[in-house]
């Protein structure tokens, strides 16, 4: 069997000692960051450039703060699910995996409510630049969350068929990496799009800078 050491997709004996699939997930997330980057940049360029229709004032910060909190908690649940399976506690694992997925679903629920609300106020992807960029960006994020939810439920149900167990907790770890990443992306979106947008943070920073400059001169 020693000759098999390098056979492909071997779970063991890689050059770095890291699992191939785990590395793949890291590489994918790096790449995915370069996917969200331009989307976020586009939104920032366009956020106040719309010629008509509702823009940032339509954002409901309190509600989104709640959904952000929900998503953050799902990450915590994910950590607990992974800890569970790593210790072989299948019950813990199942409970927290389901929690993660459910919290993710709540988040998606919020997003669906948000989008329909916007549509009622006349904001769709076709309305104006804000609608195009905001809905595309958050839509792609929502799609990522949805993939994550499907993945988590697959793990959940597979665990009953004995396909997910302590020995391959790596499968869960990789899903966890993905989930945390999607969560982090949301934090960025929430910070940069919602908070900046709603409070005009950069305007105030600028005002502050001017005030300081005024004091100095």
């Amino acid at each position, binding site marked *: 069997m020693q000759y*098999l050491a*390098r*056979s492909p*997709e071997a779970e063991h004996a890689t*050059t770095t000692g890291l699992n191939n699939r785990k590395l793949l997930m890291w590489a994918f997330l790096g*790449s995915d960051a370069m996917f969200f980057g331009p989307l976020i940049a586009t939104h920032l*360029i*366009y956020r106040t450039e719309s010629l008509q229709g509702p823009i940032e004032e339509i954002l409901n910060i309190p509600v989104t703060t709640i959904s952000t909190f929900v998503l953050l908690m799902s990450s915590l649940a994910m950590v607990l699910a992974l800890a569970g399976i790593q210790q072989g506690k299948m019950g813990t694992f199942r409970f927290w995996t389901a929690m993660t997925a459910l919290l993710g679903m709540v988040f998606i629920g919020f997003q669906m409510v948000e989008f329909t609300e916007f549509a009622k106020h006349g904001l769709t992807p*076709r309305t104006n630049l804000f609608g195009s960029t905001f809905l595309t960006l958050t839509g792609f994020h929502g799609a990522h969350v949805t993939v994550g939810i499907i993945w988590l439920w697959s793990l959940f149900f597979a665990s009953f068929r004995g396909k997910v167990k302590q020995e391959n907790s790596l499968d869960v770890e990789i899903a966890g990496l993905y989930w945390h990443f999607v969560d982090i992306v949301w934090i960025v979106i929430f910070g940069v799009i919602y908070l900046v947008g709603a409070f005009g943070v950069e305007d105030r920073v600028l005002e502050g800078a001017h005030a300081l400059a005024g004091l100095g001169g």
Partner: protein
Amino acid sequence: MATNIAILRRPLDPTGAWAWITTVDHKKIGVLYGLTAFAFFILGGVEALVMRLQLAQADLNVVSAATFNQMFTMHGTTMIFMVVMPAGAAFFNFLVPLQIGARDVAFPRLNALSYWLFLFGSILMNFSFFTGSAPDMGWFAYAPLTAANFSTSSSVDYWILGLQVMGVGTLAAGFNFVITIINMRAPGMTLMRMPVFTWMTLIVSFLIIFAFPVITVAITLLLFDRMFGTNFYDITAGADPLLWQHLFWVFGHPEVYILILPSMGIVSDILPTFSRKPLFGYVTIVLAGAVIAFLGFGVWAHHMFTVGMGRWATSAFAVATMAIAVPTGVKVFNWLGTMYGGSIQFRTPMLFALGFISLFMLGGLSGVMHAVVPVDLHQQDTYFVVAHFHYVLFGGSIFGLTAATYYWFPKITGRMMSESIGKTHFALMFVGFNLTFFPMHFLGVLGMPRRIYTYAPDMGWSGTNMAVTIGAFVIAVSIAVFLYNMVRSARVGQPAGANPWGAATLEWSIESPPHHYNFAIVPTIRSQHPLWDEEANTVEPPPLPYVDESSIHMPSPSYWPLLLAMGVTLVAGSLLVWQAHAIAGLTMGAASGALALISVYRWVFEPAVATEVAEGAAAHH
């Protein structure tokens, strides 16, 4: 085996065409990439010849303006995405596992998927020729010309969807090679012992995974604009007319290094072999490659010097662009250093490698001329730029890949290519190349814009254009000679043996062509030149009687990559159908989406090594 459907039973030991269709073997996939790229090279070349006929003299009417626009768009797109990139991938696939002592890439089925996505994406885009709406807006597809109100046919949609499908495959390949090179090296194959080609593959793979998402976003937004009425590039809705250019070139410039770095790696492997001495300044050459890639992300706006960016942004991009000449120069000088003190054998691969150095260098110098912004205001969008990029793309990338073909052909087929025909090929191609592309500098200086299908007789361009056209046909003859050489040599070439060139790197330690499992015993590496430094220790020892081939289980062939790629491509195609006929499109989309989903599902639950094989092997022990 779970499935009962006979046709979809996992192919365990397919033969003939099935062996290729279901293969997950990196060597076979490499050959598929190579053959496909060559076929597209002929197609892209014929498109170029059509353009050259039209431009041979002033006021000709060989093709219409509309056809001409399709020709240069598809020529550029084909050469970049369907020729140079996949030809590079051909060598990544065939060589990287052999150069690092692995039995395959990290994810063999993903690798097959990459190939099929590339093939089907290319076919999807070229299919537009049959519907009469081939892409016609230039290979960088500037918005707002590509917006729905200015490009009313579906030509842009074909371009987007074809590129999107190919792009997914390319990304998958990027991941695969990053992981393979980081994680699949044989014991002792440290990073700083890797052949430079493998290094450049690693760097290119990183470029791919960071640059391709950006073009993915750019074309997705364009697709949304065109199909769903969003406003990203709609000037009338207040959109920024330069957004597309920024997104495209943030991808586009790294892309040109994706195209050139493989050839730089190839040349860095070939020069030592035929100079009979180690590469001069290996570490610097590797580092320079990394620096080029890194800087390559910071210079994109040199394609936009004429858009009116403001003086400081313009200056910064000019300086950053010039800076790339430094690491590139280091490479060129180190290649010359490699020749210094050598015992140079002018075999065909070496001739092409030398051709690469000289021509690429000239192209690089015209690149630096572009970086001189005021001068670029005269050169931009003229034949001077066309000359620049053919020097780097053809004189660089293609010459490098041709060198690689001559160099590794014996490893791939087990037979040598003919030296005499090879040298004829080189002479014709070198002369034809310079006859075609050097005069283009003058056309640029004389004010001939690119992408014009006709020009007036009194512009003073006719003679030079005729020379260019003649040159293009000389190149065509040289390509025919090349093709003949390959076909002939594959059948009656001299048997090559393991290491016909007396090269130093690991791939030459095993038979040609290699067994499907590459290395019977995984080698242990102790030096950068395993076949030169410590011959006795590191070359694979003569097959030992106890090496039982059946104990090596390689991943089994699979249908799912092919079917998944088909599903994805058909989903893309269904969008085009949907535009013409909503119901038909939706039906097709649902059906092909189902095909894709089923394929993913089956793939996930299919073990890499078929259970029969694994069990058989276990029983054997």
